């Protein structure tokens, strides 16, 4: 047996005597990511502030507003009533353009939603008129406090910032939109009621013959049996209620504007039956329209009033 070497000369001296490089501490060289690379925080902070040296939160209300800033319209929209479809002819080229006629009825600004109070900027618009005996008292109080008549339809339109808040009580006609500009429309499509898989999802149905019995329009199988889980997966398309939900149609050109008659003529079709309420606002996928004179002045007035209040 080899004599055991004395370990005293191999053993390291006490750590306080060693230089730092020998110490098997946290690896510092070659570390590119991880918590050890985060900025040094002086002291524990309850709130994750910018001072904490961490990236800004992406799930805060402020961050949400910042994300939406590019796609939120600068101006409010209007509420219209779909009246039906017809066509316009260009007498020069002879081109026929199918169009939808929308009428605006006493569209008025009812109130505002602000960042301080509600967390975002929006304009509440009302359209039509309702007899006050048909309006609940809380809602009537809302209209009265704002100094507007009771409205049949009320809806809000989000705007980017304070400058988009139109004066309360301001009447908005079809001249709010320029001929040739693009708008987005939102309306509820026709309700179909409870519909089968063929109509609702375009299933093929089953054969008319070859021994088929009483199952010509059925959806067929809803999934594998034992081996496939013996269950129906979430989201399986089945018969059910169809239609009646909001449909947005983007980038519709404004073909005609008639302020006197309250008529707005839009290119193409929009969702819903005749008499449907349509929300119309500047198209978010096109450059914002340049409004000459009037619109800007109104905005300025609003700003002045806000400053005074």
């Amino acid at each position, binding site marked *: 047996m080899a004599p055991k070497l004395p370990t005293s000369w191999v053993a390291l001296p006490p750590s306080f005597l060693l230089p730092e490089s020998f110490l098997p501490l946290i690896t510092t060289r070659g570390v590119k990511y991880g918590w050890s690379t985060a900025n040094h925080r002086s002291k524990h902070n309850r709130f994750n502030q910018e001072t904490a040296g961490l990236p800004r939160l992406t799930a805060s209300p402020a961050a949400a507003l910042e994300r939406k800033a590019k796609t939120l319209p600068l101006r409010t929209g209007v509420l219209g009533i779909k*009246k039906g479809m*017809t*066509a316009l002819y260009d007498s020069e080229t002879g081109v*026929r353009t199918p169009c939808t006629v929308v009428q605006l009825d*006493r569209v008025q600004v009812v109130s505002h939603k602000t960042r301080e109070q509600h967390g975002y900027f929006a304009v509440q618009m009302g359209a039509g008129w309702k007899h006050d005996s048909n309006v609940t008292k809380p809602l009537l109080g809302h*209209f009265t406090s704002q100094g507007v*008549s009771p409205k049949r339809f009320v809806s809000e339109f989000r705007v980017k910032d304070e400058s988009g808040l139109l004066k309360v009580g301001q009447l908005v006609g079809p001249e709010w939109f320029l001929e040739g500009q693009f708008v987005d429309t939102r309306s509820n499509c026709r309700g179909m009621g409870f519909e089968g898989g063929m109509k609702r999802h375009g299933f093929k149905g089953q054969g008319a013959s070859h021994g088929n019995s009483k199952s010509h329009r059925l959806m067929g199988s809803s999934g594998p049996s034992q081996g496939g889980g013996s269950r129906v997966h979430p989201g399986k398309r089945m018969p059910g209620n169809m239609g009646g939900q909001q449909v947005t149609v983007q980038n519709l050109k404004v073909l005609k504007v008639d302020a*006197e008659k309250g*008529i707005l003529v839009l290119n193409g079709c929009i969702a819903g039956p005749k008499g449907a309420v349509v929300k119309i606002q500047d198209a978010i996928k096109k450059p914002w329209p340049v409004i000459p004179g009037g619109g800007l002045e109104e905005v300025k007035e609003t700003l002045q009033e806000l400053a005074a209040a």
Partner: protein
Amino acid sequence: MATTTPTLRPLSCWKTLLRQSSMQKVATRSLTTYFKPKPIDPPKRPHHKLKVYPPPPSAKAAFKEPIKEVTASQLAILDPTGGRTTLFSKANTEAAKVGDILLVRLKNGDPFAGVCINIRRRGVDSGILLRNELTRVGVEMWFKIYSPNVEGIEVVQRKEKRARRARLTYMRKPKHDVGSVQNIVLAYQRTRGALRGNVEGGPVGHENKGGKRKIRAKGKGKK
């Protein structure tokens, strides 16, 4: 009955007095007024009638049928004289009807003639469906009657008996198909050309389409 006060025993009157007073006490006790507490009404809140603002003037009430307004404004441009409207008006007894042979002259393209088998009345979007046979193949064409591309519509031949259907789709069946109406149209064009020659004294030529167009254009009020 209370006895009279005995003069000999003056103090004895006390007993009577006390008895009387005690009797009275009972009487007064029974006469106590019934205490009626005042009904405590909840403090009446003033009936708050909310002020209701009147509605602003309505464009919708004044113009109840916007589609008609749009149609009228379009017709004022496309059919200022109203010739095309009367040609297909239901009120007009001389109007073109289904079953008639119509000739449609176009700004850009050859004229098309055929039996009218459908008139779809939709205001400014109205159209007619003409059926003919070209190179022995049945051809159907839709024409929008107010389209600026349609220069003129002429009635070549009327149906001798009024059609008793709104849409003569049965004419597509071999049994009812009239086939080509080209000969009737050519004969019609010849007579028109002759008429035109007589009126203006110019060279008569049934192939001179330009002249005919001019006349029809004036007649129909279409340019």
